[in-house]
């Protein structure tokens, strides 16, 4: 078989359906990555348009262009769209497109999940766009503080669009994060041990773990605020045992890591593109990995610096001021390592390099003003002024937009397969760079002169007119610059000549394939022995196309392999699902769920929930076999067991990381409970929960027996038996736990009268949801056994269910103890 025949056979198996229809059934990461990036850029343009409206209104004092009602929607949507519908999805799109290629594998870990995440993003984003078109967009600021956003002070549906729409979009982020984590850990080319991973993969891994632990606090906060608005559960009302500060803690527990979630992937782009622009390798690879990890963890210890003016005692503020200054150190390590890379090499002023220079200038200024506001007394003056608006744009534009522009110009030849031919790129850069500083530099000053954030107008006497006018002019210059970028990208995509495979002379694996990328990435998978495989072996692309790598023989399936996390030794063979419309269908049904909540059609909510459950059942069912697969030959004398035959299958890892996000959600709920109890005014509650030792014992027994039962089932299946009894026992045990948690919810004291009862209701509901989910999993296992889908060599599902049972047991017992013990001690 020659290269062309191999290509044709592989394409037959891997290609998405042609044309439009292909978009709705594609599970291919190249297609979905491009869709993500184009959609994200579309939202960037909308966010940018909103920015133009803001600047038009603020250009002159007393402007009547947009009154407060409309203006409040405009600035809220500008921030919300940029943060949730542009920045995060751009990272998702880039990671989804790029990771399998640079890691030397065929696709991401869970292709259908990629598609589901994309459609959730599109439908959720559409919801928010609809709110704008209808003039009922959220208007409480992008961080939506209660009580302003409670139903008393924001009675309209605007706030609900934010709480529900953003939560819908966040599913996409969590799905992508689970997938990126599992892909980077397990789906790499053989030989690619951790120390040989491309630096972008390290950054993406760290970012994905941050998403898993950073988003849940916001999801919790949104759930609680929506429950307060819809059902009167007073989590944020001080007179009923709640506290508006709880929202601020939950929001910023998310909000601060969020900005590092935005910066770190851009840093990954810089670490990838800069060395190539300087014809050398990255300086301090190991230091940079350590710095990225340090940055990720430290960023979770900064959140109160957004709350320096809320009356928290000085020692508390000092902890966060200290952490906020410390975080500049790992940032500095990266910056100086990059400058050191430039010194080590011979920098060339190609278009990506210009944008990297734009990054250096802009981000460093943003970082310096960031250190200033980390100093508490200064923040007491600067907080909530235009100084902060200027600072955040310097770090976000400098730290994300410029690196991503560099990335666009760098990878566009890869995406389009065409020669780069950007005549106007330098002009666009000059306009964007100059326009940016003209817009935002002097904004620091008017902040210090007293201009607050989020005001729709100001007085001539204030003395801010000149700077505001200059700033508005600058914003139009930025817009022209971006218009030129779009024009060039379209022209280049549509009409430039076909280009060579590796125009930049880079060393990473994405350049070892033909461009645009084939549906299967590599005709055969490489064996990797260094960080720059293409530099080590420039003939690699030809060798792979000729089938000299692993998995060179196209078969009936979409196949890839997974590796040991640390060493990169191949461990399992994986068979992927093909094109399917299940993801978009499930995203639509999920959308019905969220839309029903939004419009308060509560009778369609359970219908949608059942719909999702049925689709999830079908989703997982589709991966089964009724016969054992023998070890698969992957070439080079290696045969690997199929992933469905092992305990630590990709699905197991996916569940592990999803449960990490879940545990963070639960932990945030516990934090909320503890916070309200110890700090909120209005405690103790008028009525405590009446404990029942019988219910508590029953619940604990149910939890314990279910954990034992699943272990019995695993032992039985390993020995070749059919564990129907154990599965049945587990199901019954979980249903007992369901009863105990249901009773807890029914007996929670007056949830709409005090936050204590409300919290018990939510805790019970959380446990109940997971118990029902786990019961469904036991039922699923029973169905699998009865239809012959399980055996000693097809047992991966049992280990996955065990993870969920263990999680349920721990949280279930915790919840019951908390409810009954607080009743006893009080």
């Amino acid at each position, binding site marked *: 078989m020659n290269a062309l025949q191999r290509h044709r056979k592989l394409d037959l198996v891997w290609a998405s359906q042609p044309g439009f229809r292909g978009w709705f059934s594609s599970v291919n990461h190249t297609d979905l990555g491009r869709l993500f990036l184009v959609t994200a850029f579309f939202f960037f343009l909308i966010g940018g348009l909103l920015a133009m409206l803001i600047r038009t209104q603020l250009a002159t004092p007393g402007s009547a262009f947009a009154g407060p009602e409309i203006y409040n929607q405009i600035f809220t949507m500008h921030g919300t769209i940029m943060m949730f519908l542009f920045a995060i999805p751009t990272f998702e799109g880039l990671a989804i497109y790029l990771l399998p290629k640079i890691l030397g594998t065929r696709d991401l870990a869970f292709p259908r999940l990629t598609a589901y995440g994309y459609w959730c993003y599109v439908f959720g984003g559409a919801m928010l766009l609809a709110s704008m078109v209808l003039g009922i967009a959220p208007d409480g600021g992008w961080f939506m503080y209660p009580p302003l956003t409670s139903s008393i002070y924001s009675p309209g549906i605007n706030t609900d669009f934010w709480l529900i729409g953003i939560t819908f979009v966040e599913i996409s982020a969590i799905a992508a994060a689970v997938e990126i984590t599992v892909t980077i850990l397990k789906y790499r080319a053989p030989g690619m041990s951790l120390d040989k991973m491309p630096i972008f993969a390290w950054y993406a891994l760290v970012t994905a773990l941050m998403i898993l632990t950073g988003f849940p606090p916001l999801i919790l906060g949104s759930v609680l605020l929506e429950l307060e608005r819809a059902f009167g559960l007073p989590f944020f009302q001080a007179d009923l045992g709640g506290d508006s500060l709880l929202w601020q803690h939950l929001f910023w527990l998310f909000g601060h890591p969020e900005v590092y979630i935005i910066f770190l992937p851009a840093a990954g782009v810089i670490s990838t593109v800069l060395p190539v622009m300087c014809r050398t390798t990255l300086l301090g690879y190991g*230091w940079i990995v350590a710095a990225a990890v340090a940055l990720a963890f430290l960023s979770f210890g900064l959140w109160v610096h957004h709350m320096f003016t809320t009356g928290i005692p000085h020692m508390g503020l000092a902890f966060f001021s200290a952490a906020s200054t410390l975080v500049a150190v790992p940032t500095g390590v990266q910056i100086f390592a990059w400058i050191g890379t430039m010194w080590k090499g011979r920098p060339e002023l190609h278009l990506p390099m210009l944008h990297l220079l734009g990054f250096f200038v802009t981000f460093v200024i943003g970082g310096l003003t960031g250190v200033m506001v980390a100093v508490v007394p200064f923040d007491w003056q600067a907080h909530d002024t235009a100084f902060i608006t200027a600072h955040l744009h310097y770090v976000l534009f400098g730290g994300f937009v410029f690196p991503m522009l560099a990335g666009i110009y760098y990878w566009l030849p890869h995406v389009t397969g065409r020669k780069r031919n950007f005549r106007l790129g330098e002009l666009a850069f000059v306009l964007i760079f100059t326009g940016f500083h003209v817009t935002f530099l002097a904004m620091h000053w008017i902040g210090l002169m007293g201009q607050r954030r989020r005001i729709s107008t100001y007085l001539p006497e204030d003395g801010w007119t000149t700077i505001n006018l200059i700033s508005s002019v600058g914003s139009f210059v930025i817009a022209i610059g971006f218009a030129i970028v779009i024009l060039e990208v379209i022209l280049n995509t549509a009409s430039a000549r076909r280009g060579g495979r590796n125009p930049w002379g880079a060393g990473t694996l994405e350049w070892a394939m033909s461009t645009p990328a084939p549906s299967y990435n590599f005709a055969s998978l490489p064996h990797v022995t260094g960080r720059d495989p293409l530099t080590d072996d420039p003939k690699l692309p030809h060798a792979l196309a000729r089938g000299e790598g692993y998995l060179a023989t196209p078969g009936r399936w979409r196949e890839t392999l997974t590796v040991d996390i640390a060493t990169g030794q191949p461990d399992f063979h994986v068979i992927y699902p093909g094109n399917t419309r299940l993801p978009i269908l499930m995203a639509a049904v999920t959308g019905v769920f969220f839309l029903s909540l939004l419009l308060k059609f509560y009778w369609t909510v359970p219908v949608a929930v059942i719909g999702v459950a049925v689709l999830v059942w079908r989703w997982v069912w589709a991966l089964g076999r009724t016969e054992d697969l023998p070890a698969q030959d992957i070439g080079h004398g290696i045969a690997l067991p199929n992933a469905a035959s092992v305990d630590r299958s990709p699905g197991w890892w996916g569940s592990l990381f999803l449960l990490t996000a879940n545990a963070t959600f639960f932990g945030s709920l516990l934090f909320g409970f503890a916070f309200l109890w110890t700090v909120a005014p209005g405690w103790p509650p008028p009525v405590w929960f009446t404990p029942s030792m019988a219910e508590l014992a029953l619940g604990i027994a149910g939890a314990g027996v279910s954990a034992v039962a699943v272990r019995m089932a695993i032992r039985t299946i390993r020995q070749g038996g059919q564990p129907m009894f154990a599965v049945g026992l587990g199901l019954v045990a979980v249903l007992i736990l369901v009863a105990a948690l249901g009773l807890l919810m029914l007996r929670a004291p007056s949830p709409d009268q005090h936050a204590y009862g409300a919290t018990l209701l939510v805790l019970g509901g959380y446990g109940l949801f997971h118990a029902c989910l786990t019961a469904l999993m036991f039922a699923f296992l029973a169905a699998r056994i009865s239809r012959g889908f399980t055996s000693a060599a097809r047992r991966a599902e049992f280990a996955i269910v065990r993870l969920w049972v263990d999680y349920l047991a721990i949280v279930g017992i915790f919840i019951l103890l908390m409810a009954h013990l607080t009743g006893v001690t009080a």
Partner: protein
Amino acid sequence: MGSTVLTLNGCVGALSTVDPAGPAARTIATLWWVMLTGAIMIFALVVILVAASFRKRKGAIADRFWVLILGIAFPVTVLLALLGYGLFVGERLLQRQGADVVRVAAEGRQWDWQFSYDDLPGQTTAGVLHIPAGQPVDVAITSADVVHSFWVPRLAGKMDAIPGRVNVLRIEADTPGTFRGLSSEFSGRGYDNFTFDVVAHDAADWTLFLQGETE
């Protein structure tokens, strides 16, 4: 002379944090100028290093220099010093016990402020806070509805008004005068114009005020 410099630099303004009229604002303004100077110097260093990397002939510099000296030792030194300075200033601005502290209260709501006075029980003023000049004043701040923030830029930093809580902010005006204040937490439709005034009286006028004159 000082105020001429300020005017030439465009620092002067009724809401300017860099035209301080009280000890807290002055300490913070000094902090700002020190940080600005440091920031400009660090920025210049980075720009010079980046620009110099384009030269054809550069010295060979060890990896460890970039990471350990420039990336770690240098920022650690600067940041520790800054943190120390900042915490020291923060401690100084706290509302410690004192013999001559005057206590007032501020209740914010959409979209006006009600001020009351420990030394004038039963009386409130709307939109104007009266204080004595040259004495520390503790403002007990709270909200009747949503989150607001009490801010008089020329006198001190800001403190949020949170329903269910009372936050205390110490302000002091050096000399008698009127100082503009702003509510600085977004609170909806009327936020743009949600402002107030602080009138600092000399000793004689303050006594008159305490005797019942409320304007």
